[in-house]
């Protein structure tokens, strides 16, 4: 087991929550279903300019929410709760701030004061388009030549790939541990999430897409004989 977020292949989940009219899927959901969804989204994106966490670190904080919370929370509850944990870890907010703001919230007394000293790295409205447009590319040069080539058969390791941190972030799903597949794409060097999530630098590695037969992943009898699952995997996840 890894963490509760690692749910690929899990049994017990019901029908996909789709809006249907007369049995037909209707795709007319607003971008943000509620105002607080929109706010949770925007304050998370904006805070990253000051907090300077990597995308891997923010994912790690979401998946590290206590399992009972992770199972119960909707998507933006996960985002906003992980955001606060990130801000506390970064020292930008402290627990007293949380206790005080909660007191005010419960008194219906949430007031925005005049801020005179915005953080120097705060994201300005005029910079939103350029910041989003730039994004955060994860491609990095890797000098070592790739260990695997397209077409080659590989096997994933059968334990957590994170070498440095017990319980640390990784992107090898448990359903694909110890499984045989074939390299179908080579994306050259990319930041290794297992390091980046823990402020341990980029540690780039060659990244591949590996195709697994459904029968290999779910056992001889469970899978359709043709279907496959393609997963992006870093070199150190493979043998």
């Amino acid at each position, binding site marked *: 087991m890894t963490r509760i977020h690692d749910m690929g292949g899990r049994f017990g989940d019901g029908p*996909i929550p789709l809006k249907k009219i007369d049995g037909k899927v209707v795709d007319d*959901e607003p*971008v943000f279903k509620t105002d*607080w969804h929109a706010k949770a*989204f925007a304050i998370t994106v904006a805070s990253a300019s000051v907090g300077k966490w990597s*995308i891997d670190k923010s994912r790690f904080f979401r998946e590290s929410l206590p399992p009972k919370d992770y199972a119960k929370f909707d998507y933006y509850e996960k985002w906003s709760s992980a955001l606060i944990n990130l801000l506390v870890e970064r020292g930008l*907010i402290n627990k007293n701030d949380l206790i005080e703001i909660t007191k005010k919230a419960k008194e219906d007394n949430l007031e925005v004061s005049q801020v005179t000293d915005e953080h120097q790295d705060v*994201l300005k409205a005029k910079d939103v388009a350029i910041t989003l447009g730039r994004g955060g590319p994860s491609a990095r040069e890797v000098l070592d030549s790739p260990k695997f080539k397209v077409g080659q058969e590989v096997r994933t390791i059968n334990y957590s790939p994170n070498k440095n941190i017990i319980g640390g972030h990784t992107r090898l799903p448990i359903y694909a541990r110890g499984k045989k597949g074939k390299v179908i794409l080579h994306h050259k060097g990319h930041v290794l999430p297992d390091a980046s999530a823990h402020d341990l630098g980029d540690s780039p590695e060659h990244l591949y897409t590996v195709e697994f037969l459904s029968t290999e992943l779910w056992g001889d009898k469970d899978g359709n004989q043709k*279907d496959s699952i393609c997963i992006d995997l870093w070199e150190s996840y493979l043998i």
Partner: protein
Amino acid sequence: MSDKKNVEHNHDDHHHHDHSLLPEEPELRVKAIETLLLNKGIINSDTVNELIDTYENKIGPRNGAKVVAKAWVDPEYKKRLLENATKAIEELSYTGRQGEHMVVVENTPEVHNVVVCTLCSCYPWPVLGIPPTWYKSDEYRSRTVREPRKVLQEFGLELDLNTQIKVWDSTSEMRYLVLPMRPVGTEHLSENELESLVTRNSMIGTGLPETPK
């Protein structure tokens, strides 16, 4: 006995429950965080509005539909798109956050592609915008890699058993966009008219383009 052999760092879990100090009700929780961050000067309220406006009005699945329609009418563009999607999509200026590294996968009579992110909810924002609720649900994340045919049936998509389903689990920063098959009987349509047939779900692989009326 000393514990010196045990040198590896153990991730400290104590930062993963600070959120429990906040109000439990999600709307109030978010309002409290927002107020706190504004007062601390960590975020700026114009920026918050600008970000919401951007994804509500500027970046969404109509971008992806333009990419698809262009590929349907322009074989050269389609070639570039399948060879280097990031560059080809940049020609239409749909770049940046959560679309830094794009791969376009083509549906054919033999292969049907469908995209999921089992570990979180990775999704190509510059071409598809913010993912819908179902894409972020436990149900879609858990079931799609294991029983894609059943999942697609719930979307109304019955695939021939001879068609191979390829599920793409977005575990890295590579972002996948499905290039659906051009519907039959659309030879006479313009690029603009074709674009209007391209649904969001057809670019995730959970639907097909609409057919002309």
